[in-house]
């Protein structure tokens, strides 16, 4: 049951306007970042701002084409597009060109295309297609596995290209799953793992195990609501700990507190299970699994950190966590970036007047660190405006997603919101030192054809779906 509506009149022009403003701001800031007197014409196509103008023109053309294509095309061909992207991601591993250590570019003549940027679109489409199928129940093991496969396959392939930043983007699709009703406990578990990972790097193992025990007893109290049971549990653990401590001292085995507590936990765990079965207290098993899991996790963190992360990645994480200071390496970039933004003051130094961003102090200032130029030349006024604009933009997109009648459009919309959200938060966050340096572009701002086109396609497919929302009867 469809009805025809003139799509040109039902386009969300406000969003399109914001898009145009963002792209325009991006372009003049690239001009400012690369500007020098030898090439002052903003239409100089040998320079980045000149090239960006070409990319923008092409992006607008792509946007128009997207609107001309029938709406059903996007859901019908989602799987095909996804499969094609996977093939391209594999192909780039073989035929790709390495730039800055990441083998993620196809080089065609003078142009370079990064398939990872476009793979996000296909993933969002497939996710929407799969989750909107009639017979899919999200909270089943089968769906978990399939969704995990949809998200992780491109992510892993991109990781193999050595482009960790772009690979991480895929985890943001968890937000889409959240909106579509994935169990909160799964998300909490994920959140917990992340927090534990960070804590394990910062704190001693002993403190973490004590914290976990405290949390488990608090949760137990919430679930059980009987102070007496909690008291008995703590009592048992305390007693076994004291006894083991005594044994350790007497036999002078020289075990550290951590292992004493661990052993005590093992013994009391068995007691708990017996008691739980006897008095039919629920959830004990779950809590024990939680405890064991956190112990294992803290153990594996060091291993993962030392063996799976590259030294520069370890450094970035350590710098953000304040465990390491490296003012000439990783911290240098962030420091220079902060100096550039900070030197802008309230009103900024004025268009083309920035010095910090112009003298190569800030690396990658036209791509990943474009926000520095905004901060330096337009000051807090400028950054406030840009951040607010992004917030409003995302807020607006959520509104649009929510007004969709078809689940496919809504889910895809949330995919768009999540991807943009991740890029914006990480990119701006790293320039002001709030998150580790992860090289991903600022949507619509950063120099580069691939990213601009990919974000344009991502956004305009959504606007195209939105424009036809009224054709679909509820």
């Amino acid at each position, binding site marked *: 049951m469809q009805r025809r509506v003139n799509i040109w009149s039902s386009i969300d022009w406000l969003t399109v306007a914001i898009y145009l403003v963002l792209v325009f701001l991006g372009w003049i800031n690239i001009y400012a970042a690369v500007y020098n007197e030898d090439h002052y014409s903003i239409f100089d196509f040998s320079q980045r701002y000149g090239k960006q103008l070409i990319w923008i023109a092409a992006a607008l053309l792509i946007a128009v084409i997207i609107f001309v294509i029938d709406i059903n095309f996007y859901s019908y061909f989602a799987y095909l597009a996804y499969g094609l992207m996977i093939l391209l991601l594999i192909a780039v591993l073989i035929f790709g060109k390495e730039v800055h250590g990441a083998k993620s570019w196809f080089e065609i003549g003078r142009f370079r295309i990064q398939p990872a940027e476009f793979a996000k679109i296909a993933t969002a489409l497939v996710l929407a297609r799969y989750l909107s199928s009639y017979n899919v129940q999200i909270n089943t093991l089968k769906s978990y596995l399939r969704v995990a496969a949809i998200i992780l396959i491109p992510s892993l392939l991109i990781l193999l290209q050595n482009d960790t930043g772009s690979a991480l983007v895929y985890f943001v699709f968890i937000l889409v799953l959240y909106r579509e*009703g994935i169990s909160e406990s799964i998300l909490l578990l994920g959140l917990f793992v992340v927090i534990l990972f960070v804590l394990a790097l910062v704190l001693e193992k002993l403190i973490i195990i004590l914290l976990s025990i405290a949390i488990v007893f608090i949760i137990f109290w919430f679930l059980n609501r009987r102070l007496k049971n909690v008291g008995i549990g703590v009592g048992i653990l305390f007693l076994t700990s004291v006894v083991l401590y005594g044994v350790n001292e007497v036999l002078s085995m020289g075990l550290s507190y951590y292992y004493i507590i661990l052993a005590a936990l093992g013994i009391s765990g068995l007691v708990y299970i017996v008691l739980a079965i006897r008095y039919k207290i629920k959830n004990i098993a779950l809590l024990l699994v939680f405890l064991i899991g956190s112990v294992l996790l803290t153990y594996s963190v060091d291993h993962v950190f030392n063996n799976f992360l590259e030294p520069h990645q370890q450094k970035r994480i350590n710098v953000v966590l304040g465990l390491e200071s490296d003012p000439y390496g990783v911290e240098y970039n962030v420091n220079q970036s902060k100096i550039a933004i*900070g030197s802008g003051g*309230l009103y900024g130094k004025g268009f083309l*007047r920035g*010095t910090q961003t112009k*003298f190569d102090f800030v690396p990658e200032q036209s791509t990943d660190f474009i926000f520095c130029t905004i901060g330096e030349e337009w000051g*807090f006024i400028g*950054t406030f405006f840009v*951040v607010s604009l992004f917030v409003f933009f995302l807020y607006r997109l959520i509104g649009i997603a929510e007004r969709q009648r078809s689940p496919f459009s809504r889910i895809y919309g949330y995919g768009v919101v999540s991807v943009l959200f991740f890029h914006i938060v990480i990119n701006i966050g790293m320039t002001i030192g709030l998150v580790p340096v992860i090289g991903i572009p600022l949507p619509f701002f950063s120099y580069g054809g691939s990213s601009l086109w990919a974000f344009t396609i991502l956004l305009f497919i959504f606007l195209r779906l939105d424009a036809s929302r009224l054709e679909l009867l509820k």
Partner: protein
Amino acid sequence: MDSFANRRHIFRVIIILIGLVYIVKLFVIQVVDSTYKVTASNNVLRYVTQFPARGLIYDREGKLLVYNEAAYDLMVVPRQLEPFDTTEFCQILDISKEYVNEALRRAKEFSVYNSSIFLKQVSSKTYANLQEKLYKYPGFFVQSRTLRKYSLENGAHLLGYVGEVNNKIIESDKYYKSGDYIGVSGIEQSYEEYLRGQKGVNVYLVDVHNRIQGSYANGRLDRKAKVGSNIISTIDSDLQAYGEKLMRNKIGSIVAIEPSTGEILALVSSPTYNPELLVGRIRTKNYVTLMSDTLKPLFNRALMAQYPPGSTFKVINALIGLQEKTLFPYTKYECAGAYYSRGLRVGCHFHRSPLNLIESIQMSCNTYYCNVFRSILDNKKYPSIRESFDQWREYIMSFGFGEYLNSDFDNELKGLVPTKQTYDRIYGENGWRSLTLISMAIGQGELGTTPLQMANMTAAIANRGYYYTPHVVKEIEGDYKLEERFFEKNYTKIDSNYFEIVIEGMALAVNGEPGSGSTARSAQIPEITVCGKTGTAENPHGKDHSIFIAFAPKNDPKIAIAVYIENGGFGSTWAAPTAKLMIEEYLNDSISVPWWEEYVLNAEINYNAETSKHME
């Protein structure tokens, strides 16, 4: 149906919260916190590398050998350039306009924003002139460097020289940046890590008029340069200078070692060159000249030239025979002017016959050692020659031959001691016998040894059975210690009691009565017992090389020495008197018979003075 629609609020809350956090953080950085402010509106940071002075090098007596002289590199940042008066600029620096254009083009090509060297090593005088007028030339600034200076003209090979780093080094070692200096050979190379110190950096604020406004951020980003450590070498500079003087107009080398420590007292490679030639702007030109010289003055013969050891090797074969009990002090062999066996003839010179062990060393009898060598290889103790040869080789290797000595020079060669596989390849696995290898009995044939290895062998004999790894550095100032290996005794596989009789022979070779047949009487020094052995290395390309090894005094050896004089003929002719003069100079600081000094100094052996004028 859509029961999770409420979750959209969570999204909105998260987005707004993060937006607020970011705005607050931006407000703090941009408005509240002043540490990120750069005060003057158009200030630019300039990173000026602080090059530490390179460590000095002293000789064993504390005499300064190598020090530094200030020089200045004129740097340019193309982005900061403004039109300037080229005529005056060229006048101050004494350069042409073409040079200015070319250098600026190169600098721009390297980087528009980063500094690169415009003119290297400007003298202090020019610098003083330039400094006053530098305000007229925005974009230019001066970076101070140090250049090496030498107090003596000697020791070029062992001191080594300093050169600019090449791309390969820059890529493999993060410490070095384009234009940095690095030790390329000798001590400068081996002890680069200690000598170079640690570069520092000063970050300055610079205004539009190219004037430094002061330190940036109160010097928080600055890093102090650490001066390089001084090095005290084991060289006796007087002895080194004397050695180089004696070797003038000759090709060859002298290595002198203190046996009780393994410290290298002198290391002469001739022809040599004045180390000043490879410093500063003249280096490239001079380097090319030295490289194209047919006598190869840059080639360090003391470490890298391989010659057969000649008759000096008889000493080692005697020791092996004694250890293997195939030779005894009383063993006598007849010699009728040559060694004959199965149609093979090894010639000998005229002397009385038969000889015992001591006499065989004294008179250097070839026949005697052909017999000794065969008795070692044909020893019935071993099932076949392949095993006995292996054993023989082990002994040889234990004197430091055929393997790197691991001195602190990076470019020593390991020489050549053939293996049984070498002979298997030539003659087939069962195709060779002791007679096949007979030339090695008298140190000819497939053997290759460097002068350093020969001096080390002499030290091992002087010590009666062990040596310390030869080294050229005595002490590194600061909290550094020399590597432990330089203080460990390396034992040869010969028991120390066997050395005495061989040393007796070496003493007699030098100190025998006239007419007694002693081969090295030209190495005699009054009142000091020199123990020595002559050698003559067969040379397929021309006249034989003259070799002499010696140590003295006999009972408390203070110096062990090896002398090689290419195309010098018999060891006793040139090498022995040269060694004698060196020993006398070192032990007595004076020469007892000046005639010998003149004799050596005036000798010009196969040496074309025309080609090597630049060495004077």
